């Protein structure tokens, strides 16, 4: 390490299934510069101190969603969290509410397996041939769902959601936001099918409006809004079945 370089300590919650039964903390001291991200800090550790430190990463620019983890107790993307914002020791742990596979890698299969259940594809309201060109969609119609289409599947919102942590049957904030994105898309007609999941216990009714999901979302998707807006719709739908002509 060069003389006079600033250093910082990274405390990682390690877990190696073959070796110890329980996770344990390990501290690494590394030199750092003003613009180094936590991800770059972890890379320094892996390249120079301990090659067995394991974490997911790829794009380095907060768009692939790989590097979500708990940094000083909060769900953050490691590539867009900077070491300069911490004093002394940064505590790093695998994303909360998911089982740990190894070190900072979690078992993400629950999220991935739930994805098809929300029917995240267009079922066209008025199908067109390709030769007829694109569906018309005005900038206002695009604006109705665009924000919800920004989800990078980083799962920080799942780590923020205590209801998901307490009962993983809950579909969860990110996937309900994506479901809402499709329901709001003017080209789509499958809201009725998707709403069966919305109305279910594991749909919006598992949510108690904690609101932390929207706080931690790195892309301002606002999943709390997507979920809670649908509660009103879900309740009205429930009452509407008593009206003549429905139910």
């Amino acid at each position, binding site marked *: 390490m060069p003389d006079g370089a600033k250093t910082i300590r990274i405390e990682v919650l390690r877990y190696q299934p073959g070796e110890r039964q329980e996770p344990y903390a390990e501290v690494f001291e590394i030199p750092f510069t003003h613009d180094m991200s936590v991800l770059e800090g972890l890379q320094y550790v892996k390249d120079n101190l301990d090659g067995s430190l394991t974490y997911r990463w790829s794009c380095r620019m907060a768009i692939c969603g790989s590097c979500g983890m708990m940094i000083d107790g909060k769900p953050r993307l490691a590539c867009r969290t900077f070491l300069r914002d911490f004093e002394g020791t940064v505590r790093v742990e695998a994303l909360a509410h998911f*089982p*740990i596979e190894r070190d900072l890698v979690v078992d993400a299969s629950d999220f991935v397996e739930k994805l098809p259940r929300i029917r995240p594809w267009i079922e066209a309201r008025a199908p067109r041939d390709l030769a007829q060109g694109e569906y018309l969609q005005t900038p206002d119609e695009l604006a109705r769902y665009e924000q919800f289409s920004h989800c990078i599947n980083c799962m920080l919102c799942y780590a923020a959601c205590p209801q998901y942590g307490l009962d993983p049957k809950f579909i969860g904030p990110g996937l309900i936001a994506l479901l809402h994105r499709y329901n709001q898309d003017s080209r789509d007609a499958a809201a009725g099918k998707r709403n069966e999941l919305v109305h279910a216990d594991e749909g919006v009714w598992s949510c108690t*409006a904690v609101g932390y999901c929207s706080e931690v979302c790195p892309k301002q998707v606002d999943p709390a809004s997507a979920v809670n807006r649908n509660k009103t719709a879900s309740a009205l739908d429930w009452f509407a079945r008593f009206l003549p002509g429905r139910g």
Partner: protein
Amino acid sequence: MVRRTYTRPMEGWWRRDPFFVRYMAREATSLFVELYALILLAGVVSLARGPAAYEAWLAWLASPFAILLHVLLFFVFAYHTLSWFRIMPKTMPPVVVAGRAVGPRAITGAGVAAAVAASLAFVAVVAALAP
């Protein structure tokens, strides 16, 4: 090769982050709302039982303990109201006024202002009716 994942316990989850502590406080305020409802219910029941019972209830309300309780309840209700309006924007579809989207802080502010105005109006009415 055995793959063994580790599931971390959820015990004490709400103490891990100030955001969760505030959420639990918000939820806890509803218990105090329930308590106040019971006090009012006791008043209604005592009214039905006759003037002596009603006077006893009013006397209890004037006791030091009850006054302290009501002061506590006032602050709890204030937090209850504030936190309610803080989460309200999340439950609403987008609000557009004169072509521009109304942000969540404006909605919260409007709600709190309406609650304060309603409370002041109620106090004024009660004061005017007091003998």
